[in-house]
């Protein structure tokens, strides 16, 4: 965790009109990356209820009244959480697709199409996210 590529600051958003597709891809990749690592800490914190649940009786676990199950199902019962999950899906899908694009760029494959592949990543992310909405909103009321 040491070497960094110092190509000067381009994160001057006052210059956003000058940004190319490659710059936007890089900025979106960083932003979605920050969101994902932030979520990972939150995710492990919520899943840590399993530590208490593991100490509960078999009867309580089988009745699904343990703290892990009630916490997760309680959160899933909230419309806001479902919306945030859709947002998380969009963030994860974009980061995966753009990540694949970056792997290709690093390997020198399709460099001339890197702008098009960024737009394709955005469109595919949108399509997958929209298609997933019914699944993510199953069984929840507003």
């Amino acid at each position, binding site marked *: 965790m040491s070497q960094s590529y110092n190509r000067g600051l381009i994160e001057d958003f006052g210059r956003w009109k000058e940004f190319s597709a*490659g710059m936007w891809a890089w900025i979106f990749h*960083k932003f979605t990356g*920050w969101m994902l690592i932030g979520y990972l800490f939150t995710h492990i914190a919520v899943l840590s209820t399993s530590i208490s649940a593991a100490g509960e009786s078999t009867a309580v676990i089988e009745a699904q009244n343990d703290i892990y199950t009630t916490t997760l199902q309680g959160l*899933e019962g909230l419309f806001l959480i479902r919306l945030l*999950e859709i947002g998380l899906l969009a963030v994860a899908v974009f980061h995966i697709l753009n*990540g694949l694009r970056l*792997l290709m*760029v690093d390997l020198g494959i399709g460099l001339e199409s890197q702008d098009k592949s960024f737009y394709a990543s955005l469109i595919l992310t949108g399509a997958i996210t929209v298609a997933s909405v019914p699944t*993510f909103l199953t069984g929840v009321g507003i």
Partner: protein
Amino acid sequence: MAERYSSFTPGGTGWFLQRVTAAFLVVVLAFHFFLLHFVNHAYEVSFMGTQARMENIGYFLTMVLFLVTAAFHGVNGVYNALVNQGLEGTQKKVVLAVLTIAGVGLVAQGTYVALTMAGMI
């Protein structure tokens, strides 16, 4: 030649490990999302169901490796992004120390959680 924007020095250790973990994460993150939102549903997740999945040693090891690679990839990505923003000297060392402690803490807590899910603790 297309322009290249990255927070990493091409060919460096950080860059290489970021790419290796990325290749693994692309597959496992997609699998994780698909399994817990489309095959199973998040609103139906229970401790009993989680235990049943985690008692499979292959699944358990995959999830622990998923945690380790995701923590490294995330922390290494954040660190390189901050260095790229101009972080240097003492601040750089402090940030590296804080991020390393946070990353190791995340892996330790996550592994403990995984062990309780698998009934090993």
